[in-house]
């Protein structure tokens, strides 16, 4: 028995080490700095990087990546040839951004992905699903074992009783007897009834207060857009796409032309990327083969499903919170950068708003708006909460 346990433990460790090794720094660097212009197997703005280590010399590559315009100016033939080939669009300068070690890591990643081993995230996902199934199986097993245990113990008890010449009773007999006895006990009946009422009230209360509360709401979107890949893996700032969050009451769903800033060139992804990116092209009328917009195309606007729905009677302004209040998006929207499919993180109830307004500090010293303002509150305590400047008043959100 002990041996078997040891083997299990060993296998588990092995598995975790394996996972750790797969966590490739080169991949993330590649995605962060290169992927917007280069594909591994496809041409984007820049050339495909497959077999790049065979075509060019390592030192040349270091120099080129760090400062390509300098190489072109110095008259390097290879450099000029690439520059001419790609319509004289220069590559970004990475001097000071990427160290030689970083570049080496990226190149190693490119070499390794040449041989077609990728999609680690896919494997990871199925693994998770298996884990889920396993835990359910485990539960069922446990229930069965305990049932068996009760049965055996009962049998043992009865055997012992018969040995002791006592009156034996089966489980159903026992249950019947006890319930008969309890049903005559008024106190018990009263308590049960009370408990029942309390439970019902409790359930009704929670049921009622959750009417119209849709946290964890996770509708299927017309395009399987993954915030995890964009905001998480590739580290794109929220404000890049949702830039109106700083200026307006709406954070805004980015218009398709914002997608096209990158997806003019990036037209394939790891899982369903090709299909899903194709949906943008279909909406806006872009031909990915010739890389041109189709003229007189009848565009098909994308109908996203709105997840965060505040009722019309409440006024909420993103810029007030993001720009003035300097809140992080995640405060209300949760760890969006880890979500493949976005769900509503907060319950968006008034209680939730108010709780935050009671505890959240105002950017009091930083913003000149508050100059000579609310001096009394300022003297009272160092912290000025939203509440102190009237953040709990009805008319601040309801008009």
């Amino acid at each position, binding site marked *: 028995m002990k041996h078997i346990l040891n083997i299990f433990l060993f296998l588990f460790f092995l598995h975790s080490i394996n996972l750790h090794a797969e966590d490739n720094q080169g991949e993330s660097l590649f995605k962060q700095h290169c992927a917007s212009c280069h594909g591994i197997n496809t041409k984007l703005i820049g050339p495909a990087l497959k077999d790049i280590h065979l075509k060019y010399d390592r030192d040349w590559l270091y120099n080129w990546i760090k400062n390509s315009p300098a190489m072109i100016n110095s008259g390097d033939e290879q450099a000029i040839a690439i520059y001419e080939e790609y319509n004289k669009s220069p590559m970004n300068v990475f001097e000071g951004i990427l160290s030689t070690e970083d570049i080496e890591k990226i190149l190693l990643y490119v070499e390794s992905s040449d041989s077609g081993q990728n999609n680690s995230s896919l494997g990871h996902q199925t693994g998770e699903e298996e884990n889920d199934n396993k835990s359910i199986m485990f539960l069922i097993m446990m229930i069965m074992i305990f049932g068996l245990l009760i049965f055996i113990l009962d049998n043992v008890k009865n055997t012992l009783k018969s040995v002791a010449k006592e009156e034996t009773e089966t489980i159903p007999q026992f249950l019947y007897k006890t319930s008969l006895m309890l049903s005559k006990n008024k106190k018990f009946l009263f308590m049960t009834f009370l408990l029942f009422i309390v439970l019902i009230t409790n359930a009704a209360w929670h049921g009622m207060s959750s*009417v*119209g509360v*849709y946290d964890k*709401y996770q*509708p299927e979107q017309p395009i399987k857009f993954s915030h995890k890949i964009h905001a998480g893996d590739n580290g794109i700032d929220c404000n890049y796409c949702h830039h*109106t969050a700083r*200026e*307006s*009451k*709406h954070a*805004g*769903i*980015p*218009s*398709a*032309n*914002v997608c096209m800033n990158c997806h003019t060139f990036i037209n394939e992804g790891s899982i369903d990327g090709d299909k899903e990116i194709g949906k943008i092209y279909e*909406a*806006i009328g872009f031909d990915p083969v010739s890389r041109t917009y189709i003229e007189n195309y009848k*565009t098909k*606007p*994308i*109908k*996203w*499903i*709105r997840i965060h*729905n505040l*009722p*019309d*009677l409440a*006024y909420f*302004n*993103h*810029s*007030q919170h993001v*720009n*003035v209040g300097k809140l992080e998006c995640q405060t209300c929207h949760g760890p969006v950068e880890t979500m493949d499919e976005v769900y509503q993180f907060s319950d968006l109830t008034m209680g939730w708003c108010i709780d935050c307004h009671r505890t959240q500090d105002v950017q009091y010293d930083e*913003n*000149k*708006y508050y*100059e*000579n*303002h*609310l*001096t*009394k*509150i300022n003297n009272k305590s160092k912290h000025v909460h939203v509440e102190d*400047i*009237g953040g709990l*008043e*009805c*008319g*601040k959100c*309801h*008009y």
Partner: protein
Amino acid sequence: MKKKYWKSIEQTKNNNLELHKEFADKIPIEKIIDNKNNFTASRRDFLKLVGFSTVAATITSCETPITESVPYLVKPEEITPGNANYYATTFDDGYDFASVLIKTREGRPIKIDPNYEARSLYDANSRIQSSLLSLYDSYRLKSPVNQKSKELNISLEDYFRNLNFDLSSNKKTVFLTSSFTSPSLNNIIKDLKLKYPNFEIIFYDPISYSGLLDSYDEMFGVRALPNYRFEKADFIISIGADFLGEWLNFDHSEGYASKRDPDNKMSQHIHFESNMSLSGSNADKRYIIKPSEKVSVLTNLYNIIAKSFGEKQINSQSCKYDAEIKLLAAKLIRSKGKSIVLIDSSDKNLQNLCFKLNMLLGNINKTINIAEPLFIKKGDDNKFNILLNEMLEGKVESLIINDVNLFYNFYDQNKLKKSFKKVNVITQLTLKENETSPFVNYIIPKNHFLESWGDSNPKNGMYTLRQPVINPLFDSIQVEDFLLKLLGNSKNYKDYLKSFWKKSILQSTTNWNQVLHDGFYFSKQKLIINIKNNLDINYTSKNIWLNHSDGGLELLLFANHLGDGKMANIPWLQELPDPINRTCWDNYLCISKNLADNLGLKNKISADGQLDGDIVTIKSGKLELSNIPVFIQPGHSDDTVSLSFGYGRTKSGKSGDNVGVNAFIFYKNFISEYSGIEIIKQETSPHKFASVQLAHTMMGRDIVKEATLKEYKKDKFAGNHPENLHTPEGMKHVENISLWKQHDYNDGHLWNLAIDLNKCTGCGACVTACHIENNVPVVGKSEIRKHRDMHWLRIDRYYSSDMTMEKAESLNEDDNPNNDIGLVKKYKLMEEPSQNPEVVFQPVMCQHCNNAPCETVCPVAATSHSKEGLNHMAYNRCVGTRYCANNCPYKVRRFNWFNYKDNDDFDFNMNDDLGKLVLNPDVTVRARGVMEKCSFCIQNIQKAKLDAKKENRKVKDGDVKIACENACTTGAMVFGDVNDKSSKVHKEKQHERSYNLLASVGTRPNVFYKTKIRNKKDVS
């Protein structure tokens, strides 16, 4: 003795038993039950229904609603969803003119505001603001119609391909249009005339200023309207000209109001008129005359002044005000160069004489700006009459009608029908079908002004641009493009306009984009105007009396806020109460009380607490107009009745049709005065008015505080003495007595609104602005009749009474017991307006009391006070007890008796997919059962604060513009933060004239008023 209050004049007059009955008629309960035979729902049925509806409601409420969110595919650079964009453009429909700012949200226009930067001609009155809704009118024509072949929905290409008239034929093609001042359109027409010599343009104004235009042409050599500069006038005499109301449709009120400051050489305004107009009610002294007496007033005035200047006198007749006219003439001479005399008349001779009078008084180039006359009206009665005759003679091949609705506003419909039949092809360019449409061959939908490019030259030297703020909603074309196509020019009008401006109007250094951004351009190139002054005084003397004969009972036609009736289908305008009569959704025959008594006509308060009026027919020769309700108007001439234009439309749309009667029937030869009228009482059940104010006077209370200029000069607190109350510690000022703990306003903002009653003319632009900004629903006539109007802001009107508190007391304390009038009679007399009452206007909105009576009685705390002095109203918290409205001393809270949105019983713009686009997305649309009221446009306050925070600065004075204040071009309203010591409103609050409404109640409002001061010097 118990006090007794009367509701109306009628009530005081007779002790009719009907008045003491609580219900007019027995409530026909049996009938109701009869109508619903199965009135016997069993208990089981009831339970079934309750059960079913509860389950249904629960199930539906639990469902997660799926809301789609559709972003732009390619977002326009200037649009940020959630933020408003403003565009400067020009409103110019031939009746009104203004340089305006359009507020758009996500590309749809939601508000029209004055463009203050234009410095001139920016007054967006109620009509101009409401014109927004005509964009979203579901009655708009969606595509061209060929009525000849009964072919609906032809395309514009079809129309031009099969153009059924020949422009180059030797018969005429006439472009009949409402007035416009567009230089580029004029250029297109010039080209058309060059190419087709038989092309002609005729201007038609439904309410004509032809006489004045001709007179100006004769005196100053250009056919234009005079540009009066009231800001330079110390002494104003108006003879029937309602210059603050509809006369010339030009923003005179700003200049006028700037001279109504008692601290700074206040002007004096004398008004002669027959009906009670907006200008008359603002006058310092008002004289009642018949319309035919205008001549004698002017000639007498002229003669006295001519005599003193040694000029030739003219024929005159004595009139009842000769003694007063002498005084006025003397004062006119004293204020030489600083006065204005104006007269409303379609008679050229009278206008000539009036200009001559102003010349003698040295007003030319001082108070009348001759160098910058107004071109906003072009109508020519003679040319139009000639056109009609030519049409009858068959000389017209084709007629293109632009925005003219002849079959509504031309008096002789028979002649029109005959002459229309003689024209080969008639094309109508219009926003929507109207009364004229059945008589034309083609109806072409025209772009709304918010969908069009354009320009205008409203006054000499000023040019404005019009730009589209939304793509055309339907298959429509703008007039200019239509004419360019006729001309065979392939250019579109936008490019044409741009190149025309660059060539002809802009200086080479001026940037087109800048002008487009500003919306206006002042050019140094001006028409040079020389005073002609070749008035033949003998000719005038002979002819001036020709058209004016005193013929018994006279009829005066006038325009109110509905103007010429073009916008009758806009429910906002219909529901805006007339500033004087406080009645909406109607026009009526205004008559004086004496005349009504003589004719046996009555207005009475019916048992449902509203006004009922007798119905009459007016007749003169062959002309007859029936079913006109009678409205008894204090201060009306006894020998005159008056009726307003703009009503009685039959093909305008769901809101405008069959409201009132069409007064244009009597607008014979474009003369608004008519003598020899006969009034016949119709024996029908009385007309039901929808009046929002039935009280006439203030009943001796200090609601509007008043003083004369003389009193004010002596004592700055005249009429506004501090209100003290008895307390156990002796007399105390109301500000020092309170049951309540006071709010702490030492920090942050304290928003206040100042309303200067001297500057408020009562025009109602603020009411409309508030209506539009805050998604206030339109409730319709029957609801208004139940006093369920929803206006957040109302303008109360009070008449003065001959009986005052002081007078009654002095009579009662008199030694002579015969004079004792007693309490009942005192109040009875105080309720009655004088024969010629003084009028005051008072805008009243939520006063945002610091000790708010509404807040203390709300059982659910739905209305509460903010740190910034605002009285908040949380609609979603309100359960509709209406305690707050009952406890409000100012009666400014409005209750939503129904869902006014998506409700067929309220079939106005909110029951209409297109009409709903006008709603302000920042303001909740209220549901049934909640209370609402003025919020001080809290959405604008919050926005200004947020903008300041975003820009890392303090809120500046003037950052917050609330809708009413922004619409008020006279500057009567000033909004701001009184805690900001440099703000305008802070200064206003310190002023001696400022007071709180009903201060003795102790509510301590954040709205304050400034005493009304009248300049009665020398004339009272």
